[in-house]
């Protein structure tokens, strides 16, 4: 069924109760051409673009829990492409362009709202970095501008722009096309569109072993039986090292909890996204009205999906200094997601040289959500054609042998 206003109108006659399931429950087949491990946004997007752009390919997505239940449902939903280096900017801007047509493409409202993102500067060096990045963005065709304090005060009246605070705001960069999207809708939209193209979405299915023979992928042993597959794409974020260990390899990533928290819903108070690298925190207001606030990484490895309280304490202090009006807002929920951080804060989108037919898309660290459609698109082409998509080529895992790193650590708009 194609969702449209006419369908909503027609369903009104039966009290909106006749809607079919967005995608069908399938009984798994014994063999697939490509199996995607991980039913988060990136995995579902990969499956969707594989099925769409390589018709006839039998694709399955295996998910340990339920789709979108991992980091896809745990992030702060910010979408932007104002990175510093060409390779990263090209990848994230590719994603941004896909975001701009995504609701139409998927026939599912992902509520992509281009409300702008401001990255605040609090020191002279911050401002120099901001100017450099804005110039780099403009050279790469990404919209960006430097915003003065006076202009910031005008645009975001509730932001504390005075000099009496510990780290006064000195200016900001702004990407007007950046914004937020509804994270659950992204998972559901990709799942529905993928299923429409014949992808089998298999939930509650945990991979237990990878069957590799003479350096070639043969299949996967899972909690729901054995699947034959000669090409396997792993998109499991914080748990990538666990899967890699099944193939007998190690990845250049370390997993950390990354925390976020939301407030009680309120009347509209913040119409854009504000991020600060120096005091570390970022905030936006969801359409439901709650403030969505993101904190930093726990400073040690972990898989706890909880995180340390001092990290959110630090973030909340920063938020209250930036927005004194928030000081008596009550917080509703706090959680952690497990993110896999690469040494150069850039992802790995790559075939694995040691195992023919095994591909990894991981290492997105703290900023994977924004890349969901772009990541899925270039990874699908990397698997479908068995060679890196041109935009994915710089993110080959071999860069950790050649040394050709893409150093976005601290170069991107917010610390990674």
């Amino acid at each position: 069924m194609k969702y449209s206003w006419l369908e909503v109108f027609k369903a009104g006659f039966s009290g909106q109760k006749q809607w079919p399931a967005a995608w069908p429950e399938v009984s798994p087949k014994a063999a697939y051409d490509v199996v995607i491990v991980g039913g988060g946004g990136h995995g579902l997007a990969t499956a969707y673009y594989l099925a769409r752009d390589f018709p006839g390919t039998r694709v399955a997505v295996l998910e340990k829990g339920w789709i979108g239940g991992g980091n896809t449902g745990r992030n702060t939903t910010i979408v932007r492409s104002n990175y510093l280096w060409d390779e990263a900017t090209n990848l994230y801007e590719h994603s941004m362009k896909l975001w701009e047509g995504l609701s139409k493409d998927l026939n599912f409202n992902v509520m992509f709202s281009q409300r702008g993102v401001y990255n605040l500067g609090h020191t002279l060096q911050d401002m120099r970095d901001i100017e450099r990045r804005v110039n780099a963005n403009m050279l790469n065709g990404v919209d960006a501008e430097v915003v003065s304090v006076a202009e910031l005060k005008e645009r975001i009246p509730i932001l504390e722009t005075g000099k009496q605070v510990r780290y006064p705001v000195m200016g900001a960069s702004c990407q007007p096309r950046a914004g937020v999207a509804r994270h659950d809708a992204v998972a559901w939209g990709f799942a529905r569109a993928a299923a429409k193209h014949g992808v089998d979405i298999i939930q509650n299915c945990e991979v237990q072993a990878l069957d590799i023979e003479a350096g070639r992928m043969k299949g996967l042993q899972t909690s729901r039986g054995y699947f034959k597959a000669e090409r396997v794409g792993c998109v499991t974020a914080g748990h990538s090292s666990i899967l890699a260990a099944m193939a007998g390899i190690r990845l250049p990533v370390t997993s950390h909890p990354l925390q976020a928290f939301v407030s009680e819903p309120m009347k509209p108070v913040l119409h854009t996204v504000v991020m600060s690298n120096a005091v570390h925190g970022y905030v936006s207001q969801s359409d439901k009205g709650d403030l969505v606030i993101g904190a930093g990484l726990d400073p040690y490895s972990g898989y706890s999906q909880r995180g340390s309280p001092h990290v959110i304490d630090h973030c909340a202090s920063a938020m209250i200094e930036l927005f004194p009006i928030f000081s008596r807002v009550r917080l509703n929920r706090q959680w952690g997601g497990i993110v896999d951080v690469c040494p150069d804060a850039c992802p790995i989108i790559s075939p694995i040289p040691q195992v023919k037919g095994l591909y990894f898309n991981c290492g997105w660290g703290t900023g994977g959500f924004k890349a969901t459609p772009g990541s899925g698109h270039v990874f699908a082409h990397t698997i479908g054609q068995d060679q890196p998509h041109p935009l994915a080529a710089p993110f080959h895992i071999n860069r950790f042998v050649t040394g050709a790193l893409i150093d976005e650590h601290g170069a991107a708009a917010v610390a990674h």
Partner: protein
Amino acid sequence: MFLIHCPYCGELRDEQEYRCAGEAFIQRPGLDCTDEQWGDYVFNRTNPKGKVIEQWAHSAGCRKLFVVERNNVTNEIYAVRTFESYKEQA
């Protein structure tokens, strides 16, 4: 949040006084190693789920490095030991 017993200061102190310096006992290859071996040494990590053996520094205290054996899911600490104690064991 958890507390770590510093083997040098002899006190149970808050985690914020410490700095985690990653996996312990990573062997540096010889100078005649290949690029692959060097890349593996510099970048690749085991990154296990469950028991990890890490080096921690008491950065706001005695500033010495030591070994913490920790569960990185529950943050339970199994043991805190000096590097010397491993040498004696071997």
